[in-house]
């Protein structure tokens, strides 16, 4: 059993099978788990203490129209493996707990996700817009944000294709 199986077994042991939406091995040394938002901090704390996940590579927010996902890519340098955590967030209540207390590096990534996708990270020390102007009102990466390029692109393809 490699490190991937060890991680999966450890997670199942600690939290029980039903609290995960899915558990999978993506490829060598990469594990993907899907959880609900309420379990996020507990799972992260467990992974950090048990498997020495010292590094948070990135936080990506995805809009799946019916729900949001906040995707965390965690790395353990000492054990040399990665975990991808997809945390589900309901669309009408985009709140999730912040992981800044665990990883300081999450600070800017959570601000970026808030800035572009509008997910509110509870407990973040300074959750303000980082890339867009302070007075911007929308969250551009959401699927319901209209994209002007979209129209141009379609029309150009139609003209080109006849």
């Amino acid at each position, binding site marked *: 059993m490699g490190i991937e199986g060890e991680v999966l077994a450890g997670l199942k042991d600690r939290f029980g099978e039903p609290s995960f939406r899915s558990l999978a091995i993506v490829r060598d040394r990469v594990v993907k788990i899907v959880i609900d938002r309420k379990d996020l901090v507990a799972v992260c704390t467990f992974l950090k203490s048990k498997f020495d996940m010292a590094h948070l590579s990135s936080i990506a927010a995805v809009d799946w129209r019916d729900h949001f996902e906040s995707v965390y890519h965690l790395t353990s340098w000492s054990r040399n493996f990665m975990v991808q955590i997809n945390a589900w967030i309901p669309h009408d209540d985009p709140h999730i707990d912040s992981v800044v207390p665990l990883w300081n590096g999450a600070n800017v990534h959570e601000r970026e996700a808030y800035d572009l996708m509008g997910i509110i990270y509870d407990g973040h020390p300074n959750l303000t817009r980082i890339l867009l102007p302070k007075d911007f009102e929308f969250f551009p990466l959401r699927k319901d944000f209209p*994209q002007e*390029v979209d129209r141009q692109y379609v029309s150009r393809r139609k003209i080109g294709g006849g």
Partner: protein
Amino acid sequence: MAEMWINMGPQHPMTHGLWNLRIKVDGETIVDAEPEIGYLHRGYEKIMEVREFQKNVVLTDRLCYVSSITWSHCYCLACEAAMDLDVPERGKYLRVVSNELQRIASHLMWLAAYGPDLGLLTALLWALRERELFLDLLQLITGARMNQNYPRIGGVRNDAPGDFEKYCAKVIGHFRKKLGEHEKVFEQSKLFQVRIDLRKLDPYDAYPEMDFQPAVEQEGDSYARYKVRVEEMKTSCDIILQALHKMPTGPYRVKPPRRIEGEGFRRTEDSRGEALFYVIGDGDDRPYRVKIRSPVFSNIAAAPLMMRGNKVADVVAIMGSIDVCVGEMDK
């Protein structure tokens, strides 16, 4: 003297682009710092959602104009991970070669910019002089000196010319001599960073077959970062020569599927740190969501930590050693 805030940017020689570092000084000592970014935000992740997978390579090239190939390479790897696509061996080797050439060119550009930061304008011209040779090599293999648009999902755009190895060996032999001169003219001050080489830890492409030692320094101050970059240039020279030596024959590209159902991510060792692309496809020929993780974006967040307690004159040395590229930072 009273404490005061000083704007270093958005138009300032230190910034190397368009961002603002506000520092709070007490006399000459920095009490606090606060980076303000986003001046160059172009909405990359949104734009990429409406372009086909293959066409996005052009965009990812423009993420950072001094290290284009490494970025499009990372994007192609992520797409391939999502497609479960295997790249032919020769394609992998060509990617390694172009990647390392680009890394050297990028590091030389950094060295060129770092010299004037420290008051050494001579280093600028010396580093640019050497960079020219590597740009020539890149031009030889890709046809362009900037924004090369070279990696493709499923391989690379074109094969290397026949006598490429000869030119590479010549340039690298010359460069190794000159690098010694550059090392003589540099020196500077303190702070921290841990260096981990993804080419070893999470190998991609033909890197597993290469024999090299990643450049690592224990201290983690500006001088250590300078030494890491210089060591990396030497390592890259070794890797290029090895890859050209071991390069197999055969096809260099396969045709990828147009549509992706599923998701994938890959990290690579960019010139500036850990680059990560996370690509999701929903079965369309365009990505449903692309997430770009820029190393500079993460490093710049550590600016307040690195600044506190240092002198105003250290700001340039510290921020310069991070090698800020605003294009990839603001996406």
